[in-house]
């Protein structure tokens, strides 16, 4: 459903963030991108929905050329791709419900949405999405009153409102307690398996990668240095992991953390 061909991104200051990246994502896949900070993971995810314009290469999503799309065409593509962020990117002063409803903006009449008017069905849907991530009782609170884990659930509910075909998750658990990592990734996996939404997610912890990925790509200095299937990643050794992450990397045992706080 997503095909990336020879993608290159060079920033105005000359940094080559991505260099000739090509890969494919099939329907229902849970693709995890690993790599050090600065290896190009965030740039890659943002190129897919054109939050960042790539310098070269093509991106085909659902048989549409994303790189050639503009204006309303691009917005129609974007609304089919939900996005979850490391720092949640909620509007702190708005209520939880408003933040979730914002996920519907691509679908509704721009004029009435400017006055914060949403159709009744959208509200029903937002409540359902909040219920799904277990925080429907917080709907009237301001977003900045919630804890980190709760905020990321609002982020997931917002992405869910788009009825997406695919979700991009940029280090969704990196600013959370390791304990919460499984909760959040559990919700994302639920989207993947129950709603058949493809997921592209960047992560750091090998344990989490082994637990959730159906396919793994390793990035280093803007180039793909590792490709592996579900089976490959299960048998991945610390040495291979270190090759991607550099010599200093240690295996962080997030899995055991979430399993038992004694």
């Amino acid at each position: 459903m997503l095909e990336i061909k020879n993608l290159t991104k060079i920033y105005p200051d000359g940094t080559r963030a991505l260099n000739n990246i090509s890969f494919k994502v099939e329907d229902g896949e849970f693709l995890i991108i690993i790599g050090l900070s600065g290896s190009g993971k965030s740039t890659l995810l943002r190129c897919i929905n054109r939050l960042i314009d790539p310098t070269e290469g093509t991106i085909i999503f659902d048989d549409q050329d994303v790189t050639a799309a503009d204006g309303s065409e691009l917005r129609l593509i974007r609304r089919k791709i939900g996005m979850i962020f490391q720092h949640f990117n909620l509007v702190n002063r708005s209520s939880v419900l408003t933040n979730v409803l914002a996920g519907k903006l691509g679908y509704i009449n721009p004029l009435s949405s400017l006055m914060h008017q949403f159709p009744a069905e959208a509200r029903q849907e937002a409540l359902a999405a909040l219920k799904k991530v277990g925080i429907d009782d917080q709907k009237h609170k301001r977003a900045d009153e919630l804890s980190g884990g709760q905020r990321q659930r609002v982020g997931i509910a917002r992405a869910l409102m788009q009825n997406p075909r695919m979700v991009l998750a940029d280090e969704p658990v990196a600013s959370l307690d390791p304990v919460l990592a499984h909760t959040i990734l559990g919700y994302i996996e639920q989207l993947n398996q129950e709603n058949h939404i493809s997921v592209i997610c960047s992560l750091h912890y090998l344990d989490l990668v082994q637990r959730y990925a159906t396919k793994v790509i390793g990035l280093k200095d803007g180039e793909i240095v590792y490709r592996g299937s579900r089976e490959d990643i299960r048998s991945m050794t610390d040495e291979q992991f270190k090759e991607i992450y550099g010599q200093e990397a240690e295996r962080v045992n997030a899995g055991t953390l979430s399993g038992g706080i004694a």
Partner: protein
Amino acid sequence: MERTYSPQKASPVNALTAAVLSLLVPGLGQIAALKIRRGLLLFGSFISIAGLLVWRIKNLGRLAEGFWGMLSKAFERNQLFIGFSIAAIAALWIWISFDAARQTRPGKKYGNSIFLLVLLVFFTFGWQVSEINILKLASDANEAWVPLSKILWPWEAAVTRDTDTVEAGAEILIGTEGTPPPVPEFKDNEPYIRAEPNFGDLSSLDKNNEIIPGTKVTLYGENFAPGMKTEIWWSDAIGNEFQPRYQGKYLSTITDETGAFEVKMIMPYRLVPPSARGEQLHTVMARQVSEVGSLKASEPLLLTIELIIETIFMGMMATLFGIILAVPISFLAARNLMSSSPITIAVYYLTRTVLNIIRSIEPLIWALIAVVWVGLGPFAGIVALTIHSIAALGKLYSEAIEGIDPGPIEAIQATGATKLQTIMFAVVPQMVPPFVSFTIYRWDINVRMSTVIGMVGGGGIGFLLVQYIRLLEYRSAGIAVWFIAITVAILDYVSAEIRQRFV
């Protein structure tokens, strides 16, 4: 803590040479010893102190002949200051020379205590130039007490009663030529006054400005209210009224139980233009003023209330216009919005520079310009405050825009929202708290500024206040001061409340 110094270059001159050089030109020895910055700094300090001293000597010793004459006169007028300055400058000179000798020694670093002396001398000059006189604070305190007490408790002037005046007048011929005017006719139940004689000369001034007393006149009054204070007034040939004095006191008397009085007076001094010489009729009057009716608000109180309302509205209107114009400008002055192309960056720098220049000119000065522009009155004040508000708010708003978190913008864009939707959902909510906060802050400033902007003709209560102070009507001025204080206090409270609600 241990400090290490980089090895220093050896001094090319010996200690004696450096000392002599610095005696010739202060600082030259240090420069020769390769302590160039120290030498230049000491030279600059010495030269400016010497220049200041010469200026003060010229100032204090003006009118005297020659430098030494000026110096001795200046010393006479302010021995402590001139003596200390000369001693200090001599000490500095010697010390600089001594310091030059020390600086030639390699490896050692000497402190900067020499600059303490320089600072001390500068502060001494500052004290003298700004005419500081602490003793005056105590010795003349009683002078300040009268206006101050009136300003602190002005409420006697806040209320007034209607007055009822009982008055009678009699004409007097000035000069000995011409016919004296007829004596007023006596009528029952009507106040009556007559002057004896009803002609004569006014008091005048001789060549040495000594008063030559005029003709003595006796005034007889009847049919006034009994046992009541009666003021004597004088009206000259063109109708100017004044209350003549006798032995320094305003002339007045108290009527007897039948309502009659008898007052002796000397005809007052009045400057008469040469062209008006000849036969002139003046009028002498007796006047009884009594308060009638109930208390009512006085004119100063009513005027103050009227103008304080004007003041508050001036502040509000200036803030409103300021917001309307500052919002679009603030977008031009926000770096994060304007960094996309060289043209927008140029616009950014231009906007910033203009805003800074406008902001650095005080609203009072803008008011002076606005008064010329649109004339006296509140509109000039509004124009001045608006100009300053645009610059101040433009800067604050643009900094708020620069400070917004790009995360939510990215997130809303990713949902497929349009640009306008992104602004409404991601930008506006982030801007509301700083905008509200800065706007209220500015409203606060504008109302406070509009209380003084009237002093230069910009309308509002400041105009009234400065007028009362110039007329020495301290009670009326006190009413205005109280109203300003109350308004500002209420405003402080209200703005704090609003800010708490919104932010």
